[in-house]
């Protein structure tokens, strides 16, 4: 981990020094031991703020859309899952590929803040993290804690298709040779086996909680419409009133807008303050697109675009 951090800082410093990038977006230490926060480094003198540890959960690619009008190139640090967001943005013409410098870090899995907070005092400042194989030794200003990785790993990391970034101009860290573990959609199959009424009961009870903060949309590299349907005032397609009907419309519309485009980074799940399993909706659409069109996880390759935005004569059309 220390070597990766060193490499990361050296790479960032070199990019900024040589004006190969005007800003480097990465992770810095957060206000609690097991959290990091996105940092935006513009001077080689500040690269020490960059860190790499098992708490770098935030996907950073969406910031490219915020900063795309800045002069010069933007460097962004990505894990495997985040890296698919780069191609999402370039395929959607949100930012040209040559405007972005991708710093890729192979990642063995990230730890959940919520799970960690239930197992240890996370309120201190992080001093060091040591990878002890099955355990993590987390050294903080409030004491040292040993946690079992398998107990605090983010759920999404259990089925990781890309431990290594799919795109990187600079790779820091060693390639991870663990076999990817594509999702076999066991959970989705359980839902598919339910009756319509059972599914409705489940989802409506989830949507009922939604507070429409739009964190899921705002973190999503696939949500980059110039004017989002949920922000439109005239016509107001979706009412601002918070009730299960409007909330359902919001979630289902968002899921359909991402069908064949969602890069499955899982960030919508993580950021939801109400713990709505938003990713399940996207997973269902990923499964369908995979079965119908043999779709790779979107964003896996530079070419591709949206599978539902293309037409082939041999496309299945049994629904017609």
């Amino acid at each position, binding site marked *: 981990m220390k070597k990766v951090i060193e490499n990361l800082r050296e790479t960032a410093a070199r990019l900024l020094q040589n004006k190969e990038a005007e800003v480097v977006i990465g992770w810095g230490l957060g206000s609690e031991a097991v959290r990091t926060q996105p940092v935006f480094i513009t001077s080689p003198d500040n690269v020490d703020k960059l860190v790499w540890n098992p708490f770098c959960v935030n996907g950073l690619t969406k910031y490219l859309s915020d900063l795309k009008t800045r002069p010069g190139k933007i460097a962004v640090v990505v894990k495997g899952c985040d890296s698919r967001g780069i191609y999402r943005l370039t395929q959607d013409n949100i930012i040209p590929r040559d405007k972005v410098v991708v710093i890729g870090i192979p990642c063995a899995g990230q730890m959940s803040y919520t799970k960690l907070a239930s197992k240890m005092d996370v*309120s201190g400042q992080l001093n060091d993290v040591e990878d002890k194989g099955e355990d993590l030794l987390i050294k903080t200003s409030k004491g040292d804690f040993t946690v079992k990785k398998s107990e605090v790993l983010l759920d999404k990391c259990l089925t990781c298709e890309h431990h290594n970034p799919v795109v990187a101009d600079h790779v820091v860290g060693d390639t991870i040779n663990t076999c990817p573990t594509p999702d076999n959609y066991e959970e989705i199959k359980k839902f598919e086996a339910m009756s319509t009424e059972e599914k409705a009961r489940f989802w409506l009870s989830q949507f009922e909680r939604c507070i429409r903060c739009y964190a899921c949309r705002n973190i999503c590299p696939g949500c980059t419409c110039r004017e989002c349907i949920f*922000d439109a005032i005239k016509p107001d397609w979706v009412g601002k009133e918070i009730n299960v009907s409007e909330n359902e419309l919001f979630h289902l519309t968002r899921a359909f807008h991402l069908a064949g485009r969602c890069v499955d980074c899982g960030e919508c799940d993580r950021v939801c303050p*109400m713990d709505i399993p938003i990713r399940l909706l996207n997973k269902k659409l990923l499964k369908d697109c995979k079965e119908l069109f043999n779709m790779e996880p979107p964003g896996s390759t530079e070419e591709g675009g949206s599978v539902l935005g293309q037409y082939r004569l041999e496309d299945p059309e049994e629904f017609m």
Partner: protein
Amino acid sequence: MANKSLKKVQLKSLLDKIAGSGQLIAPIQSDGITLFKPVQSGEGVVLDYQNAVIPPKDFFFPQSEKMFSYDTSDPTWAIKPEEGVPERVLFGARPCDVKSILLLDKVFDAEFRDDIYIDKRNKTTIIAVSCNDCRHTCFCGAFGISPGEAEGADLLFTDLGGRYLVEVLTDKGSTLAAECSDLLSDDDGNGPAAKEKAVAPAKEKQMNIDLEGVKAKLDNMFEHPIWAEESLRCLGCGTCTFICPTCHCFDIVDFNNQSSIGYRYRCADSCQFANFTRAAGGHQPRPSKMERIRQRFMHKLRYFVDRYGDFGCVGCGRCLEKCPVNLDIAQIINKVKEVG
């Protein structure tokens, strides 16, 4: 009224009794999430929770509520007001959340009187519960709030192990205590001392944030570069504002579904959204995230003090915990003190 005592085993009976004679709102857990909900009995009410994800503010200022309905085909164009809420009891509010309701009173029940808010306030008896423990994100002490005091509540319960100390704080509380007198006994006099001991861990464990000088400093920080810097990582979502017990900005919208019948509702709005300040003709006084996060922190720590003489934050820690990018108000307070 003198302090009362309630055996812990009797709490469910007490809640059952309250629920039997009116509406009871209490914290319950489903899908692993603690939320305040109207309940039919004391069954399933959680007592060891630290903070509900959504504050009980929602029962006074709901995230979304109908104001009135109308029918334009009615020759008199009569406006039909919404029926108010029934008499009800809110059980389990934490001291920080009770304080937040006092702050909302300054907004909705002072110079401008908001009838639909006041109706809910008047019809609600609040039973607060002291904190024996706290979350690592709690910092109510910074705002002079104590885990064992709840000015603004009608009754205050404190878990003393086998029993609750029941402090009667208002006449409303006294009425409710009298109605439940068969379940309450007189405190033996040891209650207050035992309470201090019971809430000590919550006092010690919470974050120590010092607000000394912060307001005065913020008075001159409108143009400070800290806002641009901190706003870079903000997603512009409404999480912090919608889970905040003191945020109270709302929008008013008419709904009529292309017919003569419609209704007007108001719903919480977030200063972090671009539409929040978008004016007719497209003018946007807060065009970027910089202006929006500055507004949020300034409103809590400076403007609210200017207008109402109190901070607009109660240190409940919800936004610290839930912000997806770790934009942490406690960290901002410390940074404000450090920067030049």
